[in-house]
């Protein structure tokens, strides 16, 4: 080969670093205190970020595959860490930051500045720095800890366990449906719920776990105010025989924290009927599920119910058609028959899930995007809990439009076989799509008052920003 030789990547890299140093020195000389004038080190810069955003999972005996407590533990994974955080796969907060609702109660994501710091640390050789700069260590959590405890919300008031199922090393998916009593002697309102596998290893096998409430005599617990097609007429007996979801948990999800003044009512004598979808992983693993319940204090009972609704992403119930080696799309429409606040968003797919958008089509024909997750990860069905002031409110007659995209190509790292056609089904190798969202209904007066309150807050904020 003849001709001029192109500069090597290494040469370019050195050039960029040199340029950066020159600019840094120049900036420092000009008195810019924000300029990166020193090397980023684990001890001084990275450990505080890991403590704040990563170590809650990445510690010994926790669900994460590696600990990020010490430099020696973190250093071998430096390049993976760079890739995961710069693509925002980790921490598992995959909602698009440029679309829809942007204020959340449980935002675990890194700031742009934190990501930039981690990237510069890795690119700079991932040095440890001076151990004296390390922050004091944070206490370790126990394994398989409640996410709510990790987030500082305290332990549950009541924990109800299911029996366990021993999943063979190799077996088709199983749906395990035992029943559990709820040991209460008086009605209790629940303000927060969380489900977790009974064992840490169960986090590898249990894809989802739903706690259905077996009602005794409480038809108001059943959601009847959304519709995604023809609805059968219902009577009281029918409603009581239905089983509303107390909570849906899927791999990677945390808790459902209900909006203040709203919750779920549990009556003595009611039971939990579990639906646990278990997937074999090449090792025999026994596990069940348990649900933690956080109660409202007596005397502070809420006046409103929160209903968990799976807004469909399919036009035809039970049907998807995903050709091999393709990106596919489905969509579903659900009408709100009453004014409603939507308090969270949790996209649900199986292995080919890629992206989900939820938008509202208002009665006047206008539309508003609520949320969009563009890089869904099957292993992290994160629940995005909207901030109270940001939770969107819609008038009755609004259509909730769920768009779902699937990646059945080799580019999808979770895809077991991109050459397969994929249809609807309950197995992880089949597909489905819906958005789990908690809904609180408002009468016309409450709706108008809330809309007015939001307008006044927005106007006040605008005024403050202009002053």
């Amino acid at each position, binding site marked *: 080969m003849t001709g001029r030789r192109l500069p090597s990547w290494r040469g370019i890299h050195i050039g960029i670093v040199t340029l950066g140093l020159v600019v840094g020195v120049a900036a420092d000389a000009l008195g810019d205190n924000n300029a990166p004038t020193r090397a980023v080190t684990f001890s001084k810069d990275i450990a505080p970020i890991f403590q704040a955003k990563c170590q809650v999972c990445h510690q010994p005996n926790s669900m994460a595959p590696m600990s990020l407590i010490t430099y020696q533990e973190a250093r071998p994974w430096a390049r993976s860490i760079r890739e995961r955080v710069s693509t925002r796969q980790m921490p598992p907060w995959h909602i698009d930051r440029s679309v829809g609702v942007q204020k959340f109660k449980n935002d675990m994501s890194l700031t742009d500045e934190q990501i930039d710091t981690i990237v510069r640390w890795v690119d700079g050789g991932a040095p440890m720095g001076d151990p004296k700069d390390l922050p004091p260590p944070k206490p370790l959590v126990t394994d398989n800890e409640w996410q709510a405890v990790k987030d500082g919300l305290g332990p549950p008031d009541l924990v109800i366990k299911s029996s366990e199922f021993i999943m063979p090393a190799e*077996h088709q998916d199983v749906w395990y*449906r035992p029943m559990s009593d709820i040991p209460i002697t008086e009605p209790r309102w629940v303000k927060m719920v969380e489900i977790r596998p009974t064992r840490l290893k169960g986090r590898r096998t249990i894809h989802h776990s739903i706690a*259905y409430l077996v009602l005794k005599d409480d038809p108001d617990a059943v959601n009847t105010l959304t519709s995604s097609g023809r609805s059968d007429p219902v009577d009281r007996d029918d409603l009581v025989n239905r089983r509303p979801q107390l909570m849906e948990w899927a791999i990677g999800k945390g808790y459902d924290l209900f909006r203040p003044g709203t919750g779920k009512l549990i009556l003595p004598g009611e039971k939990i*009927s579990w639906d646990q979808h278990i997937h074999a992983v090449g090792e025999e693993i026994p596990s069940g599920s348990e649900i933690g319940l956080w109660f409202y204090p007596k005397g502070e009972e809420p006046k409103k119910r929160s209903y968990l609704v799976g807004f469909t992403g399919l036009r035809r119930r039970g049907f998807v058609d995903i050709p091999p080696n393709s990106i*596919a799309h489905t969509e579903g429409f659900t009408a709100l028959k009453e004014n409603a606040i939507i308090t969270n968003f949790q996209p649900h797919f199986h292995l080919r899930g890629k992206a989900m958008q939820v938008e509202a089509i208002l009665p006047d024909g206008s539309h508003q995007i609520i949320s969009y997750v563009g890089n869904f990860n099957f292993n992290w069905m994160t629940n995005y809990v909207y901030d109270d002031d940001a939770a969107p409110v819609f008038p009755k007659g609004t259509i909730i439009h769920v768009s779902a995209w699937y990646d059945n190509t*080799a580019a999808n790292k979770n895809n077991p076989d991109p050459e397969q056609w994929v249809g609807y089904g*309950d197995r992880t190798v089949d597909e489905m799509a819906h958005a789990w969202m908690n809904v609180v209904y408002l009468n016309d007066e409450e709706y108008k008052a809330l809309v007015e309150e939001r307008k006044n807050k927005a106007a006040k904020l605008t005024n403050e920003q202009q002053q």
Partner: protein
Amino acid sequence: VKALDRYAAPDADFVLVAAESHSGPGRAKRAKKTLLNESSALPGYRGQSAWLVYLCAAGALAGGLLVSAQQRLPSEPARQFGTSITGAFEGWFANPDGSRFFLVGYLNRNFAQAMDVPIGANNRIEPGGPDMGQPTHFLPGRQWGMFLVPVPKDFTAKDKLTWTLVANGQPTSIPFRLHPDYVVSPFRNVAAKNTPPVLRFEQRASSFQGPTANVANAIPRTIASGTLLPLTVWATDDATYSSGSNAPMRNPPPAVTLVWSKYRGPGQVTFDKTNPPFDKDTAGEDAAFSGKATTTARFSEPGEYMLHVTANDYSGNGGGGEVCCWTTAIVKVSVTGTATSTVRDAR
């Protein structure tokens, strides 16, 4: 999904998965070993060039696959006719004797058009085919687990069979593989303790249970052209019901429902009832459900036919998405003589 396993290789998991997808697990393991030996966690080490080579190779392979994708626009409307049929690989299972079967269904995207696609270039399973017992008559819509394909003894996890279908000029193809994520248990839902209906085609004859439809175990019948073939099925079932919430059924359907259809044959087949209801049968008193269902079949012309029957229990089509519990069987019919009958409604 072995998510944690895929985390186990520091800084190599993208390459590892790409290699698994295109080269089989053995080669992927070798790639992983190479990477772990050669690479360190940071750029500038010896492994960086190897990493780039694998990355480029994976990209090139992915590109090739995308080019060969079976082209359909996302969210195309469901068509009544004029479009494709695709095979649907439900999975595979092993028998107690060590033999293994692929369980296969299909989706006929022509939702108002049953189609005949003869065995040959347009309906072939290779290698080893083209005829490996697949249907030539395709009902509209999704048909779950219609037939079994025996897995050759020397078949390994790296091997595959490919079913190619060309309908209305539009080709599709899918592989059958022994992938661990596609293991199915169609004879017993271990958690719900449900089993498929047991079918008999004569009262004291041997029974069928599970999706065992296979031309090798077809039930033989002979009939003269122009006459009706009586088809009687005796069924028993445990009448086990399970759903996500396990809420009681509002209006329970019959515990077992039948679907008769043409599977193969030169002419049209008309059933008196494609979904004959069951009458209570006292012969199977020990079972929670015991019934007898009868229909007749008329053939438009002489020849060799195969009829297919699916018996669903409470779990419904495709076991309600859980791939258990239904039973299938094939009746092989020799229709002799000359054509005399009139066909009203072919399925």
